């Protein structure tokens, strides 16, 4: 499968189903790549997959695509350890890949089921930018007949908050869009903060749209619970200690990185929120405290 085909498959996934997570689209594209691969050895397969993942990161440089790719590689390694015959191994990989994709498509519903009991009747929720998982959780809360109102930050520079507000209005949830700068002002009125994540790092912290760290700090200062909802395929093997440690390739869009200009003039698109500011993480592996996240990653990678 050529690079253009791969990129086209990936883009087509995102176009046809705007609800799909970019990591899932990446994994699906990689599975298609695997099917069409003509190699004969595991080593060759791994190398071509690495190249494929690089290609995809050049299209969409988000953390999610990186974590999806990493997970897929890990999946290949684990499966190849069990079967020495290459063609049998490939069959099993494709079969398991399909099962994995079916399971992760259910993960948003699992998370919604775990999270919506934490939203009380009459709650005022603050959320940030546009997150499909948060949308699903709020949908589940509406289905269980809870009444609540939502504040969404406008989330510049792409005004993702407006998109979220529109989607929420369709669900008949009273929503107010607030300025990013107004988070400190609104925090006293809010009962809980609920955000999604683009990546969950080893320490239990999260990488999310720029502005999340500010919200977390304000929430901590006012003793409001800060909940994160994320699927398990977003767990990445990163351990940033501060904002600087987050690799540049995640902070800026792929196009900006390609032009190779001086990045100090650019505004980053994501930031890192440390685990001490997070109350609980809702994932399809269950409700986790930030310290439990590293345990999960160790179980996978070791």
């Amino acid at each position, binding site marked *: 499968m050529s690079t253009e085909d791969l990129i086209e498959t990936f883009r087509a996934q995102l176009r046809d189903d705007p609800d799909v997570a970019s990591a899932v689209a990446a994994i699906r594209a990689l599975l298609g790549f695997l099917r069409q691969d003509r190699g004969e050895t595991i080593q060759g397969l791994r190398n071509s997959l690495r190249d494929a993942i690089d290609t995809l990161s050049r299209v969409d440089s988000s953390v999610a695509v990186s974590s999806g790719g990493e*997970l897929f590689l*890990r*999946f290949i390694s*684990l*499966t190849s350890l069990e079967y020495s015959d290459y063609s049998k191994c490939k069959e*099993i990989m494709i*079969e*398991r890949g399909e*099962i*994995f994709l079916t*399971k*992760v498509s259910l993960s948003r519903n699992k998370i919604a089921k775990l999270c919506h*009991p*934490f*939203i*009380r*009747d009459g709650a005022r929720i603050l959320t940030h930018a546009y997150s499909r998982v948060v949308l699903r959780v709020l949908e589940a809360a509406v289905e269980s007949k809870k009444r609540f109102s939502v504040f969404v930050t406008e989330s510049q520079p792409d005004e993702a908050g407006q998109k979220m507000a529109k989607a929420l209005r369709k669900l008949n949830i009273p929503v107010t869009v607030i300025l990013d700068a107004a988070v400190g002002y609104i925090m006293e009125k809010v009962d809980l903060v609920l955000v999604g994540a683009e990546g969950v790092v080893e320490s239990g912290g999260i990488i999310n749209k720029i502005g999340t760290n500010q919200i977390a700090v304000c929430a901590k200062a006012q003793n409001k619970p800060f909940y994160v909802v994320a699927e*398990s*395929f977003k*767990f990445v093997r990163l351990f940033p200690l501060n904002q600087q440690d987050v690799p540049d390739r995640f902070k800026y869009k792929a196009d900006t990185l390609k032009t190779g200009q001086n990045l100090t003039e650019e505004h980053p698109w994501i930031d890192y929120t440390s685990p001490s500011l997070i*109350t*609980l993480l809702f994932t*399809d*592996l*269950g*409700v*986790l*405290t930030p*310290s*439990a996240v590293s*345990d*999960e*990653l160790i*179980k*996978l990678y070791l």
Partner: protein
Amino acid sequence: MGRRGGGSGSAATMPGAERGSELSEQIEAFAARLRRGGERPRSEDTARQTLSLLRKIVGNGRWSRAGELMDLIRTEGQRMTAAQPSETTVGNMVRRVLKVIREEYGRLHGRSEESDQQESLHKLLTSGGLSEDFRTPYPSLRANVIEAINEMLIELEGTTDNIAMQALEHIHSNEVIMTIGYSRTVEAFLKEAARKRKFQVIVAECAPFCQGHEMAVRLSKENIETTVMSDAAIFAVMSRVNKVIIGTKTILANGALIAVSGTHTLALAAKHHSTPLIVCAPMFKLSPQFPNEEDSFHKFVSPQEVLPFTEGEILAKINVHCPVFDYVPPELITLFISNIGGNAPSYIYRLMSELYHPDDYEL
């Protein structure tokens, strides 16, 4: 839950049916006792009674496959926990037994004993299909499960002693320890330390039931220098205190506590003075629930103690509440001392994964 013997009324089914209804009566009586509340039952006794009932269900109940047994236990467990939601030990014991059944089934089924029973990223990637469905009947399952429950009962006996054995590591001479209300675990802990060390104890009386008084009487019988003071004075005295040692009713999955009313105040005062807060609680009090909307842990009793009915006219104009329990968030706790040793609150999730299976968190 009447389990009548199917069919012909032969000698084999009649005693089974009788045992079934007698068991059902015992469960009903247990649930009724829980519902009534009344005297403060000792958590260890509740746990022991629950385990004995569950053992009887396993031994005498009508089931042939692990799946049926688990459904049976789950139904009975739901009935018992619904009777008194604030008694979380009942639910905990039911979940322990369910995990035991899963383990014994897995062992008989020939699966390795790793924790591949838990959901994990690893399992998501490598599993080939459906999960266990517990269909295969194994005749030795009954005996194995009963033996495992017996082991749990023995473990239950030793919990207070195991906790008390760790006392000498934590209490040093000439220390001032503060505690609140009456906890039998803390009493045993302090008594054990008093055999070799000399220290003082300040007991907050814990209004309105004032169980602190009883605690003080028992401690002073062991020649421990004890002072009783009112709850309002907790903050004032805290600067002189070296450690705060308390018991609790329940430990929640995020490391928080559901403890007797007044504990949150004590914890905040301790945090303010950077005094370590140690919680002595056995592992059967660990519950896999998170604090959330249901708030089923709250229990309110008659406000007679707060404002007696003799006050007359004023009662028509005001609302009086008497909550029994308090929520203490995990940030305020320094250390949990349990029968398996000392642990930080952030480690609770790990202990939970060893005791319970994720599918059983919701009974």
